[in-house]
Protein backbone atom coordinates (compact mmCIF):
# COMPACT_ATOMS: atom_id res chain seq x y z
CA UNK A 1 0.00 0.00 0.00
CA UNK A 2 1.24 3.44 -0.86
CA UNK A 3 -0.60 5.66 1.56
CA UNK A 4 -1.24 3.49 4.59
CA UNK A 5 1.39 1.27 6.13
CA UNK A 6 0.06 -1.20 8.66
CA UNK A 7 2.49 -1.38 11.54
CA UNK A 8 0.62 -3.78 13.80
CA UNK A 9 -2.41 -5.94 13.21
CA UNK A 10 -4.22 -5.93 16.53
CA UNK A 11 -5.92 -8.97 18.04
CA UNK A 12 -9.06 -7.43 19.50
CA UNK A 13 -11.40 -8.68 16.81
CA UNK A 14 -10.54 -12.25 17.81
CA UNK A 15 -12.87 -12.88 20.71
CA UNK A 16 -14.31 -16.35 20.23
CA UNK A 17 -11.57 -18.44 21.75
CA UNK A 18 -10.49 -15.82 24.24
CA UNK A 19 -11.36 -14.84 27.77
CA UNK A 20 -9.73 -17.72 29.67
CA UNK A 21 -8.54 -15.25 32.33
CA UNK A 22 -5.27 -17.08 32.88
CA UNK A 23 -3.23 -13.96 32.33
CA UNK A 24 -1.46 -12.12 35.08
CA UNK A 25 -3.45 -9.80 37.29
CA UNK A 26 -2.29 -6.31 36.46
CA UNK A 27 -1.55 -5.14 39.96
CA UNK A 28 0.64 -8.13 40.71
CA UNK A 29 3.13 -6.64 38.31
CA UNK A 30 5.22 -3.53 38.46
CA UNK A 31 2.83 -0.67 38.76
CA UNK A 32 0.74 -1.09 41.91
CA UNK A 33 -0.91 2.28 41.48
CA UNK A 34 -2.11 2.42 37.91
CA UNK A 35 -3.96 -0.16 35.91
CA UNK A 36 -2.41 -0.97 32.56
CA UNK A 37 -3.20 -4.13 30.66
CA UNK A 38 -1.75 -3.50 27.23
CA UNK A 39 1.60 -4.69 28.48
CA UNK A 40 0.43 -7.99 29.94
CA UNK A 41 1.02 -11.34 28.28
CA UNK A 42 -1.62 -13.70 26.94
CA UNK A 43 -1.04 -17.13 28.39
CA UNK A 44 -3.45 -18.95 26.15
CA UNK A 45 -0.65 -20.44 24.13
CA UNK A 46 0.93 -21.85 27.26
CA UNK A 47 0.35 -25.58 27.08
CA UNK A 48 0.06 -25.84 30.83
CA UNK A 49 -3.03 -23.70 30.85
CA UNK A 50 -6.32 -25.51 30.72
Amino acid at each position, binding site marked *: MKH*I*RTIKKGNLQEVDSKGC*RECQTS*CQSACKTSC*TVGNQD*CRQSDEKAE
Partner: protein
Amino acid sequence: MNNIRCEDIHMFKYKDMQMVYDVNSSSLHEVDNLGWDLIGLMQNGDDREQISTLLSRKYHYDQVEEALLEVRELREKKLLFSPVPKLDKGKLSSVGIKALCLFISHNCNLGCSYCFTRREEEKTLSHMSWEVGKKAVDFLLEYEGGYYREMDFFGGEPLLNFPLIRRIVEYAREKSYQKKKEFNFTLTTNASLLQDEIIDFLNRENINVVLSLDGRPQIHDLMRSFKNGNGSYHKTVENIKKLLHSRENKNYYIRGTFTRNNLDFYEDIEHILGLGFDSLSLEPVVTNEGSLSLREEDLHVVERQYDRLVDLYLERKEKGNPFLFYHFILDMEKGPCLYKRLSGCGAGMDYLAVAADGSLYPCHQFVGMDEFYMGNITDQQVSVKREIGERIDGAAWQREECPACWARYLCGRGCAASSYFQGGDLCSTYKLGCDLQKMRLERALYLQAV
Protein backbone atom coordinates in the same frame (compact mmCIF):
# COMPACT_ATOMS: atom_id res chain seq x y z
CA MET B 1 -18.90 4.25 4.29
CA ASN B 2 -21.58 4.37 6.95
CA ASN B 3 -21.48 3.64 10.67
CA ILE B 4 -18.13 5.28 11.24
CA ARG B 5 -17.75 6.42 14.84
CA CYS B 6 -15.10 9.02 15.48
CA GLU B 7 -14.29 7.47 18.88
CA ASP B 8 -13.14 4.30 17.11
CA ILE B 9 -10.15 5.95 15.47
CA HIS B 10 -7.32 7.88 17.09
CA MET B 11 -5.12 9.98 14.83
CA PHE B 12 -1.98 11.50 16.23
CA LYS B 13 1.34 12.89 15.14
CA TYR B 14 4.53 12.17 16.97
CA LYS B 15 7.90 13.41 15.83
CA ASP B 16 7.90 12.91 12.06
CA MET B 17 5.19 10.27 11.96
CA GLN B 18 1.45 10.43 11.34
CA MET B 19 -0.29 7.53 12.95
CA VAL B 20 -3.77 6.09 12.96
CA TYR B 21 -4.81 3.76 15.75
CA ASP B 22 -7.87 1.61 15.10
CA VAL B 23 -9.43 1.22 18.53
CA ASN B 24 -11.69 -1.79 17.98
CA SER B 25 -8.97 -3.99 16.54
CA SER B 26 -6.02 -2.31 18.27
CA SER B 27 -4.24 -2.03 14.93
CA LEU B 28 -1.74 0.67 14.18
CA HIS B 29 -1.03 2.32 10.84
CA GLU B 30 1.33 4.96 9.59
CA VAL B 31 -0.14 7.22 6.91
CA ASP B 32 1.12 9.80 4.43
CA ASN B 33 -0.50 13.23 4.09
CA LEU B 34 -3.21 11.95 1.79
CA GLY B 35 -4.01 9.04 4.09
CA TRP B 36 -4.11 11.45 7.03
CA ASP B 37 -6.52 13.81 5.30
CA LEU B 38 -8.67 11.00 3.98
CA ILE B 39 -9.10 9.17 7.27
CA GLY B 40 -9.71 12.49 9.02
CA LEU B 41 -12.55 13.31 6.64
CA MET B 42 -14.02 9.84 6.95
CA GLN B 43 -13.86 10.13 10.70
CA ASN B 44 -15.84 13.36 10.43
CA GLY B 45 -18.57 11.43 8.70
CA ASP B 46 -18.23 12.89 5.19
CA ASP B 47 -19.47 10.57 2.42
CA ARG B 48 -17.30 9.13 -0.33
CA GLU B 49 -18.30 11.65 -2.98
CA GLN B 50 -17.71 14.64 -0.72
CA ILE B 51 -14.36 13.25 0.34
CA SER B 52 -13.28 12.58 -3.22
CA THR B 53 -14.24 16.10 -4.27
CA LEU B 54 -12.52 17.73 -1.33
CA LEU B 55 -9.31 15.75 -1.66
CA SER B 56 -9.11 16.19 -5.44
CA ARG B 57 -8.45 19.89 -4.81
CA LYS B 58 -5.22 18.98 -3.07
CA TYR B 59 -4.21 15.59 -4.55
CA HIS B 60 -4.34 13.93 -7.95
CA TYR B 61 -7.65 12.14 -8.56
CA ASP B 62 -5.95 8.75 -9.16
CA GLN B 63 -4.10 9.00 -5.87
CA VAL B 64 -7.29 9.74 -4.00
CA GLU B 65 -8.96 6.70 -5.56
CA GLU B 66 -5.93 4.61 -4.68
CA ALA B 67 -6.06 5.70 -1.04
CA LEU B 68 -9.80 5.08 -0.89
CA LEU B 69 -9.18 1.53 -2.10
CA GLU B 70 -6.54 1.01 0.55
CA VAL B 71 -8.96 2.09 3.25
CA ARG B 72 -11.63 -0.21 1.87
CA GLU B 73 -9.24 -3.15 1.87
CA LEU B 74 -8.18 -2.52 5.46
CA ARG B 75 -11.78 -2.07 6.47
CA GLU B 76 -12.68 -5.42 4.96
CA LYS B 77 -9.84 -7.01 6.89
CA LYS B 78 -11.15 -5.35 10.08
CA LEU B 79 -7.93 -3.45 10.61
CA LEU B 80 -9.34 0.03 10.09
CA PHE B 81 -12.77 1.37 10.99
CA SER B 82 -13.29 -2.09 12.41
CA PRO B 83 -16.61 -2.88 14.06
CA VAL B 84 -17.20 -3.00 17.80
CA PRO B 85 -16.30 -6.59 18.74
CA LYS B 86 -19.18 -8.81 19.77
CA LEU B 87 -18.46 -9.93 23.27
CA ASP B 88 -19.78 -12.83 25.25
CA LYS B 89 -20.73 -10.84 28.35
CA GLY B 90 -20.66 -13.94 30.50
CA LYS B 91 -16.91 -14.07 30.03
CA LEU B 92 -16.57 -10.66 31.63
CA SER B 93 -17.83 -11.76 35.01
CA SER B 94 -15.43 -13.02 37.64
CA VAL B 95 -14.42 -16.64 37.32
CA GLY B 96 -13.04 -16.89 40.82
CA ILE B 97 -10.38 -15.33 42.98
CA LYS B 98 -7.00 -16.26 41.59
CA ALA B 99 -4.76 -13.52 42.92
CA LEU B 100 -4.09 -12.23 46.41
CA CYS B 101 -1.94 -9.40 47.72
CA LEU B 102 -0.81 -10.29 51.22
CA PHE B 103 0.13 -7.65 53.78
CA ILE B 104 2.83 -9.84 55.28
CA SER B 105 3.53 -6.99 57.65
CA HIS B 106 1.96 -3.60 58.08
CA ASN B 107 5.15 -2.44 59.73
CA CYS B 108 7.91 -0.80 57.79
CA ASN B 109 11.48 0.14 58.57
CA LEU B 110 11.09 3.14 56.26
CA GLY B 111 8.77 6.10 56.57
CA CYS B 112 8.16 7.15 52.97
CA SER B 113 6.34 10.43 52.58
CA TYR B 114 3.93 9.22 49.92
CA CYS B 115 3.13 5.75 51.23
CA PHE B 116 -0.52 4.86 50.73
CA THR B 117 -0.38 2.06 53.29
CA ARG B 118 0.41 4.41 56.17
CA ARG B 119 -3.29 4.73 56.84
CA GLU B 120 -3.40 1.12 57.97
CA GLU B 121 -0.05 1.30 59.67
CA GLU B 122 -1.39 4.01 61.94
CA LYS B 123 -4.30 1.78 62.92
CA THR B 124 -2.54 -1.50 63.52
CA LEU B 125 1.13 -2.25 63.53
CA SER B 126 1.31 -5.93 63.03
CA HIS B 127 2.71 -8.95 61.22
CA MET B 128 0.55 -11.48 59.46
CA SER B 129 0.30 -14.82 61.27
CA TRP B 130 0.87 -18.29 59.85
CA GLU B 131 -2.83 -19.00 60.35
CA VAL B 132 -3.74 -16.16 57.96
CA GLY B 133 -0.99 -17.01 55.47
CA LYS B 134 -2.00 -20.67 55.34
CA LYS B 135 -5.66 -19.77 54.90
CA ALA B 136 -4.72 -17.47 52.04
CA VAL B 137 -3.13 -20.37 50.17
CA ASP B 138 -6.08 -22.65 50.89
CA PHE B 139 -8.48 -19.91 49.84
CA LEU B 140 -6.80 -19.48 46.45
CA LEU B 141 -6.90 -23.21 45.86
CA GLU B 142 -10.59 -23.47 46.71
CA TYR B 143 -11.30 -22.02 43.29
CA GLU B 144 -11.18 -25.02 41.00
CA GLY B 145 -10.83 -23.32 37.62
CA GLY B 146 -7.76 -22.13 35.78
CA TYR B 147 -4.17 -23.17 36.30
CA TYR B 148 -2.30 -20.20 37.66
CA ARG B 149 -2.53 -18.59 41.07
CA GLU B 150 -0.80 -15.35 41.98
CA MET B 151 0.37 -14.10 45.31
CA ASP B 152 2.12 -10.85 46.04
CA PHE B 153 4.00 -10.38 49.29
CA PHE B 154 3.40 -6.79 50.19
CA GLY B 155 3.32 -4.40 53.10
CA GLY B 156 4.59 -2.32 54.93
CA GLU B 157 7.84 -4.10 54.38
CA PRO B 158 7.19 -7.82 53.88
CA LEU B 159 10.77 -8.83 54.63
CA LEU B 160 10.25 -7.79 58.25
CA ASN B 161 8.28 -11.01 58.43
CA PHE B 162 10.39 -13.14 56.08
CA PRO B 163 9.92 -16.48 57.93
CA LEU B 164 6.24 -16.30 57.07
CA ILE B 165 6.97 -15.77 53.37
CA ARG B 166 9.18 -18.84 53.34
CA ARG B 167 6.55 -20.93 55.08
CA ILE B 168 3.77 -19.77 52.76
CA VAL B 169 5.81 -20.52 49.65
CA GLU B 170 6.73 -24.00 50.86
CA TYR B 171 3.13 -24.74 51.75
CA ALA B 172 1.75 -23.31 48.50
CA ARG B 173 4.20 -25.32 46.38
CA GLU B 174 3.16 -28.52 48.10
CA LYS B 175 -0.58 -27.86 48.02
CA SER B 176 -0.64 -26.56 44.47
CA TYR B 177 1.24 -29.61 43.25
CA GLN B 178 -1.46 -31.81 44.74
CA LYS B 179 -4.13 -29.69 43.11
CA LYS B 180 -2.30 -29.48 39.77
CA LYS B 181 -2.06 -25.70 39.94
CA GLU B 182 0.89 -23.35 39.79
CA PHE B 183 1.64 -20.42 42.04
CA ASN B 184 3.49 -17.37 40.80
CA PHE B 185 4.90 -15.20 43.55
CA THR B 186 5.96 -11.57 43.57
CA LEU B 187 7.70 -9.75 46.38
CA THR B 188 7.38 -5.99 46.58
CA THR B 189 10.16 -4.72 48.80
CA ASN B 190 12.22 -1.67 49.66
CA ALA B 191 15.27 -3.95 49.35
CA SER B 192 16.90 -2.65 52.52
CA LEU B 193 16.59 -6.00 54.30
CA LEU B 194 17.76 -8.28 51.52
CA GLN B 195 20.30 -10.66 53.01
CA ASP B 196 22.09 -13.60 51.40
CA GLU B 197 19.74 -16.15 52.92
CA ILE B 198 16.72 -14.26 51.59
CA ILE B 199 18.28 -13.76 48.17
CA ASP B 200 19.04 -17.49 47.88
CA PHE B 201 15.47 -18.29 48.76
CA LEU B 202 13.97 -15.82 46.27
CA ASN B 203 16.15 -17.17 43.48
CA ARG B 204 15.56 -20.79 44.31
CA GLU B 205 11.80 -20.29 44.37
CA ASN B 206 11.83 -18.16 41.23
CA ILE B 207 10.06 -15.27 42.93
CA ASN B 208 9.66 -12.08 40.93
CA VAL B 209 10.74 -8.97 42.75
CA VAL B 210 9.52 -5.40 42.55
CA LEU B 211 12.19 -3.23 44.09
CA SER B 212 11.51 0.31 45.24
CA LEU B 213 14.05 2.85 44.10
CA ASP B 214 13.17 6.40 43.11
CA GLY B 215 16.34 7.42 41.31
CA ARG B 216 19.01 9.95 42.23
CA PRO B 217 20.27 9.74 45.84
CA GLN B 218 18.89 13.13 46.84
CA ILE B 219 15.46 12.35 45.37
CA HIS B 220 15.28 8.86 46.80
CA ASP B 221 16.43 9.93 50.27
CA LEU B 222 14.07 12.88 50.36
CA MET B 223 11.09 10.55 50.04
CA ARG B 224 12.40 7.25 51.34
CA SER B 225 14.16 7.55 54.68
CA PHE B 226 14.58 5.09 57.51
CA LYS B 227 12.55 5.75 60.62
CA ASN B 228 15.57 7.51 62.18
CA GLY B 229 15.55 9.99 59.31
CA ASN B 230 18.59 8.63 57.48
CA GLY B 231 18.25 8.12 53.75
CA SER B 232 17.90 4.56 52.45
CA TYR B 233 19.50 5.06 49.02
CA HIS B 234 22.90 3.48 49.65
CA LYS B 235 21.60 0.39 51.41
CA THR B 236 18.88 -0.04 48.77
CA VAL B 237 21.23 0.18 45.81
CA GLU B 238 23.86 -2.04 47.42
CA ASN B 239 21.27 -4.75 48.05
CA ILE B 240 19.60 -4.48 44.66
CA LYS B 241 22.97 -4.90 42.97
CA LYS B 242 23.67 -7.97 45.05
CA LEU B 243 20.27 -9.48 44.26
CA LEU B 244 20.35 -8.78 40.54
CA HIS B 245 23.88 -10.07 40.20
CA SER B 246 22.78 -13.30 41.86
CA ARG B 247 19.86 -13.78 39.43
CA GLU B 248 21.60 -12.71 36.23
CA ASN B 249 19.49 -9.55 36.05
CA LYS B 250 16.26 -11.46 35.53
CA ASN B 251 12.74 -11.44 37.02
CA TYR B 252 12.70 -7.99 38.53
CA TYR B 253 11.37 -4.51 38.14
CA ILE B 254 12.75 -1.39 39.68
CA ARG B 255 9.62 0.44 40.71
CA GLY B 256 10.06 4.09 41.53
CA THR B 257 7.72 6.95 42.21
CA PHE B 258 7.97 10.51 41.01
CA THR B 259 6.35 13.47 42.70
CA ARG B 260 6.30 17.24 42.30
CA ASN B 261 9.76 17.16 43.85
CA ASN B 262 11.21 15.52 40.77
CA LEU B 263 9.17 16.49 37.76
CA ASP B 264 12.47 16.10 35.93
CA PHE B 265 12.21 12.36 36.60
CA TYR B 266 13.94 11.54 33.34
CA GLU B 267 17.13 12.24 35.27
CA ASP B 268 16.11 9.59 37.77
CA ILE B 269 15.48 7.04 35.07
CA GLU B 270 18.86 7.80 33.58
CA HIS B 271 20.40 7.41 37.01
CA ILE B 272 18.72 4.02 37.54
CA LEU B 273 19.89 2.85 34.13
CA GLY B 274 23.36 4.09 34.96
CA LEU B 275 23.38 1.76 37.94
CA GLY B 276 22.93 -1.13 35.50
CA PHE B 277 19.24 -1.73 36.25
CA ASP B 278 17.43 -2.02 32.95
CA SER B 279 13.90 -3.13 33.80
CA LEU B 280 11.97 -0.36 35.42
CA SER B 281 8.78 1.49 36.04
CA LEU B 282 8.58 5.02 37.39
CA GLU B 283 5.06 5.80 38.49
CA PRO B 284 3.38 9.13 39.14
CA VAL B 285 2.67 9.55 42.83
CA VAL B 286 -0.84 8.79 44.05
CA THR B 287 -1.44 11.00 47.04
CA ASN B 288 -3.58 13.82 48.31
CA GLU B 289 -0.57 15.44 49.94
CA GLY B 290 -0.62 18.78 48.16
CA SER B 291 3.10 19.42 48.05
CA LEU B 292 3.76 16.06 46.39
CA SER B 293 0.77 15.46 44.16
CA LEU B 294 0.93 16.26 40.47
CA ARG B 295 -1.12 19.08 39.02
CA GLU B 296 -2.59 19.87 35.64
CA GLU B 297 0.03 22.55 35.10
CA ASP B 298 2.83 19.97 35.52
CA LEU B 299 1.75 17.93 32.53
CA HIS B 300 3.91 19.69 29.97
CA VAL B 301 7.02 19.08 32.09
CA VAL B 302 6.07 15.44 32.52
CA GLU B 303 5.46 15.13 28.80
CA ARG B 304 8.94 16.41 28.11
CA GLN B 305 10.36 13.67 30.35
CA TYR B 306 8.52 10.97 28.41
CA ASP B 307 9.77 12.48 25.15
CA ARG B 308 13.35 12.32 26.38
CA LEU B 309 12.70 8.78 27.49
CA VAL B 310 11.53 7.82 24.00
CA ASP B 311 14.77 9.23 22.57
CA LEU B 312 16.83 7.31 25.08
CA TYR B 313 14.81 4.15 24.46
CA LEU B 314 15.58 4.30 20.76
CA GLU B 315 19.18 5.30 21.23
CA ARG B 316 19.92 2.40 23.57
CA LYS B 317 17.99 -0.05 21.41
CA GLU B 318 20.05 0.95 18.40
CA LYS B 319 23.26 0.51 20.34
CA GLY B 320 22.20 -3.00 21.34
CA ASN B 321 21.71 -1.98 24.96
CA PRO B 322 17.92 -1.84 25.33
CA PHE B 323 15.94 -1.38 28.53
CA LEU B 324 12.37 -2.09 29.58
CA PHE B 325 10.12 0.72 30.66
CA TYR B 326 6.93 -0.85 31.95
CA HIS B 327 4.54 1.63 30.35
CA PHE B 328 6.17 1.47 26.94
CA ILE B 329 5.63 -2.27 26.58
CA LEU B 330 2.74 -3.14 24.28
CA ASP B 331 2.06 -6.42 22.60
CA MET B 332 -0.66 -5.59 20.11
CA GLU B 333 -0.64 -8.84 18.18
CA LYS B 334 -0.34 -11.46 20.91
CA GLY B 335 -1.11 -9.40 23.98
CA PRO B 336 -4.11 -9.63 26.23
CA CYS B 337 -7.50 -10.31 24.68
CA LEU B 338 -10.40 -7.92 24.85
CA TYR B 339 -11.92 -9.67 27.86
CA LYS B 340 -8.77 -9.10 29.83
CA ARG B 341 -8.58 -5.51 28.70
CA LEU B 342 -12.12 -4.91 29.91
CA SER B 343 -11.77 -6.75 33.18
CA GLY B 344 -8.69 -4.71 34.07
CA CYS B 345 -6.91 -5.43 37.32
CA GLY B 346 -9.88 -7.42 38.65
CA ALA B 347 -9.89 -5.62 42.00
CA GLY B 348 -12.58 -7.14 44.20
CA MET B 349 -13.37 -9.71 41.52
CA ASP B 350 -10.37 -11.90 40.60
CA TYR B 351 -8.00 -10.14 42.94
CA LEU B 352 -8.19 -9.29 46.64
CA ALA B 353 -5.88 -7.88 49.27
CA VAL B 354 -5.48 -9.58 52.63
CA ALA B 355 -4.58 -7.47 55.66
CA ALA B 356 -2.40 -8.98 58.39
CA ASP B 357 -5.44 -9.90 60.47
CA GLY B 358 -7.05 -11.70 57.52
CA SER B 359 -9.44 -8.91 56.54
CA LEU B 360 -10.21 -8.88 52.84
CA TYR B 361 -10.36 -5.78 50.65
CA PRO B 362 -10.73 -5.25 46.89
CA CYS B 363 -7.09 -4.25 46.49
CA HIS B 364 -4.02 -3.14 48.41
CA GLN B 365 -5.00 0.51 48.18
CA PHE B 366 -8.32 -0.01 49.98
CA VAL B 367 -6.89 -1.95 52.92
CA GLY B 368 -8.08 -0.64 56.26
CA MET B 369 -11.18 1.06 54.91
CA ASP B 370 -14.38 -0.17 56.56
CA GLU B 371 -16.43 0.80 53.52
CA PHE B 372 -14.53 -1.74 51.43
CA TYR B 373 -14.24 -4.55 53.97
CA MET B 374 -15.13 -7.80 52.19
CA GLY B 375 -14.86 -10.38 54.96
CA ASN B 376 -12.14 -12.24 56.83
CA ILE B 377 -10.12 -15.11 55.51
CA THR B 378 -9.85 -16.76 58.92
CA ASP B 379 -13.59 -17.32 59.23
CA GLN B 380 -14.46 -20.98 59.18
CA GLN B 381 -16.70 -20.44 56.19
CA VAL B 382 -15.17 -17.51 54.35
CA SER B 383 -18.00 -15.36 53.10
CA VAL B 384 -16.69 -12.80 50.63
CA LYS B 385 -18.86 -9.77 50.10
CA ARG B 386 -18.75 -10.00 46.35
CA GLU B 387 -21.12 -7.06 46.07
CA ILE B 388 -18.22 -4.75 46.91
CA GLY B 389 -16.22 -6.09 43.99
CA GLU B 390 -19.27 -5.81 41.77
CA ARG B 391 -19.70 -2.21 42.89
CA ILE B 392 -16.14 -1.44 41.85
CA ASP B 393 -16.49 -3.29 38.59
CA GLY B 394 -19.86 -1.67 37.86
CA ALA B 395 -18.53 1.79 38.60
CA ALA B 396 -15.87 1.38 35.92
CA TRP B 397 -18.64 0.98 33.34
CA GLN B 398 -20.32 4.15 34.51
CA ARG B 399 -17.45 6.56 33.95
CA GLU B 400 -18.86 8.99 31.46
CA GLU B 401 -15.69 9.74 29.50
CA CYS B 402 -14.59 6.14 28.91
CA PRO B 403 -16.87 4.93 26.08
CA ALA B 404 -15.61 7.67 23.79
CA CYS B 405 -11.95 7.46 24.79
CA TRP B 406 -9.52 6.00 22.28
CA ALA B 407 -7.46 4.39 25.05
CA ARG B 408 -10.40 2.45 26.47
CA TYR B 409 -8.96 -0.95 25.55
CA LEU B 410 -5.45 -0.14 26.65
CA CYS B 411 -5.86 1.33 30.11
CA GLY B 412 -7.59 -1.57 31.86
CA ARG B 413 -10.49 0.79 32.55
CA GLY B 414 -8.40 2.76 34.96
CA CYS B 415 -7.63 2.27 38.60
CA ALA B 416 -10.61 2.16 40.98
CA ALA B 417 -8.51 3.46 43.86
CA SER B 418 -7.38 6.46 41.82
CA SER B 419 -10.99 7.25 40.95
CA TYR B 420 -12.00 6.98 44.57
CA PHE B 421 -9.13 8.81 46.22
CA GLN B 422 -8.32 11.37 43.54
CA GLY B 423 -11.61 11.77 41.72
CA GLY B 424 -13.88 11.60 44.76
CA ASP B 425 -15.90 8.46 44.01
CA LEU B 426 -15.60 5.17 42.19
CA CYS B 427 -17.55 6.38 39.18
CA SER B 428 -15.43 9.46 38.63
CA THR B 429 -12.55 9.74 36.24
CA TYR B 430 -9.14 10.68 37.55
CA LYS B 431 -8.46 13.02 34.67
CA LEU B 432 -4.82 13.68 35.41
CA GLY B 433 -4.15 9.95 35.57
CA CYS B 434 -5.92 9.47 32.24
CA ASP B 435 -3.93 12.29 30.65
CA LEU B 436 -0.69 10.69 31.79
CA GLN B 437 -1.82 7.29 30.62
CA LYS B 438 -2.65 8.57 27.13
CA MET B 439 0.61 10.47 26.99
CA ARG B 440 2.54 7.26 27.66
CA LEU B 441 0.38 5.19 25.32
CA GLU B 442 0.94 7.47 22.33
CA ARG B 443 4.65 7.12 22.86
CA ALA B 444 4.36 3.37 23.32
CA LEU B 445 2.47 3.19 20.01
CA TYR B 446 5.10 5.31 18.32
CA LEU B 447 7.77 2.92 19.56
CA GLN B 448 5.93 0.11 17.81
CA ALA B 449 6.37 1.96 14.56
CA VAL B 450 10.07 2.77 14.61
